[in-house]
């Protein structure tokens, strides 16, 4: 029997369509929208208002220091935690089964998810930057170079954390257990990456080394380099922004995460063999 040979859009185009569709569905689910955006925003506003002080040798306040770190944490939460949970939910409610039953390339599904979380992340960054400038007097950088830094750190961070989230979501047995599976590593990571415990250089050496293996620490560092004046450098671990190393670690996570996600991603759930 002959199979149809007609043309269909490429996986990239289909992925874009899937991303738009996913975004539409996401923004209709009001609880999830509020939770995704409100959690980092409220945390930043509360923590920023509670802590006081100015870092020695610079004009950066504790609250200002928190802004880029919370942006990194928010992006990691959206890409890693939310994405992982949404894939587990897709497995539970039959989304994956339906897609598997249709001529949908898995890459289109993955691309759609990454596109969705990229858009959500950008919206989140805008919200957190607004809080930072309005509440804590963070000055948005004037030099294009800093925005460029911010751009590539965001892109690499979103891609790396997304692939990782997709890979880890295979470990969750159901949509309900996914919250626990995704949140625990995320919270641990946030602490050892110097998000809540600031400045990062105050962390004990072994934790610092452990945190430096994961993308969140580098994303936060990259964002600090974009939004904070260089006078804060004396409070960084190596007293340098280490852009080269940041790019390298994030790129390795992107490639490794992609490979891991291609190896572990399954249309089928546990027990569906």
């Amino acid at each position, binding site marked *: *029997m002959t*199979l*149809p*040979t*007609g*043309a*269909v*859009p490429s996986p990239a185009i*289909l992925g874009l*369509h*899937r991303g738009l*569709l996913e975004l*539409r*569905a*996401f923004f*209709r*689910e009001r609880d999830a929208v509020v939770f995704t955006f409100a959690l980092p925003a409220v945390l930043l506003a509360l923590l920023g208002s509670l802590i006081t002080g100015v870092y020695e040798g610079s004009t950066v306040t504790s609250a200002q220091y928190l802004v880029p770190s919370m942006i990194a944490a928010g992006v990691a939460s959206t890409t890693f935690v939310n994405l992982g949970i949404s894939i587990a939910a*897709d497995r539970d*409610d*039959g*989304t994956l*089964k*339906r897609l*598997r*039953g*249709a*001529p*949908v*390339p898995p890459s289109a599904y993955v691309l759609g998810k990454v596109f969705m979380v990229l858009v959500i992340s950008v919206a989140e960054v805008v919200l957190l930057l607004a809080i930072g400038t309005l509440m804590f007097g963070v000055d948005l950088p004037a030099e294009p170079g800093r925005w460029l830094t911010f751009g590539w750190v965001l892109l690499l961070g979103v891609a790396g954390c997304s692939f990782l989230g997709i890979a880890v979501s295979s470990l969750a047995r159901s949509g309900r257990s996914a919250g626990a599976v995704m949140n625990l590593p995320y919270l641990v990571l946030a602490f050892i990456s110097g998000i809540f415990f600031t400045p990062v250089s105050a962390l004990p050496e072994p934790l610092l080394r452990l945190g430096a293996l994961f993308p969140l620490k580098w994303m936060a560092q990259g964002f600090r380099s974009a939004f904070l004046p260089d006078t804060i450098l004396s409070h960084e671990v190596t007293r340098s922004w280490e852009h080269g190393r940041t790019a390298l670690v994030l790129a390795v996570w992107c490639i490794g995460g992609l490979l891991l996600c291609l190896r572990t991603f399954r249309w*089928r759930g546990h027990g*569906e*063999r």
Partner: protein
Amino acid sequence: MTDQYAVRVRGLRKRYRDETAVDGLDLDVADGEIVALLGPNGAGKTTTVEILEGHRDRDAGEVSVLGTDPRRAPLRWRRSIGIVPQSARDLSELTVAESLRHFARYYPEARDPDEVIGLVGLTGKAGALVRTLSGGQRRRLDVGLGVVGRPRLLFLDEPTTGFDPEVRRAFWALIRALTTGDGTTVVFTTHYLDEAEALADRVAVIVSGRIVAEGDPATLGGRATAEATVSWRDGTALRSRRTGDPASVVAELTARYGGPVPGLTVTRPSLEDVYLTLIEDGTR
């Protein structure tokens, strides 16, 4: 000549941990045929269909669906297959139209999504969120998603379970309208006899993972040639006689009463009687 068969299955076996779901099943479905897999819950219907759809692995046996082994089927094989799953809760935050338009993108010869909305009778609900649909409407959307790619082979897994009689009849009419004339092959599972009788060209009865009988619904299990029961009223007593030739018994009774026979009925075993006997024999 596999070309004449949309589905060809030989010696299919599937075990879950400690229970055999499919136990040496053979099945042929000709191109353009509508076949019902009829059986009680747990008979292996869904497992069989999911193996044919490429959703499940098998332990043994040969399977060819549209000339391809679903286990190693390329993505474009899926363009010719339509699937209506048993229960779906996906797409809840999208509208009927958004869902159908999106899925139409995946197929090279897709039907016009708006036309499909009309076909499945959801025109008034095109802009409604899928989670607000009733059970019957949701099912019709599932059928729409199953046929939007213009499949050559359509699978439906227990399509009307939980429907009230009126909605079921409307649903049957929909399936008939969608499949008559364009040569779509249909394989559906059901545990409703009337559904099998209403829709299928051929019924295969599955019990304990094997096909115990198959054929035209009217002749299934020797139903057409089985002994009939002739009953009548003799004064106050109800009399009956089993016979292979009911016409001559009626003629004899007519002669005896010299006219109409009081309370005369002639019954053949119903499809249900045949089916229940098959299930009993099959599980024994």
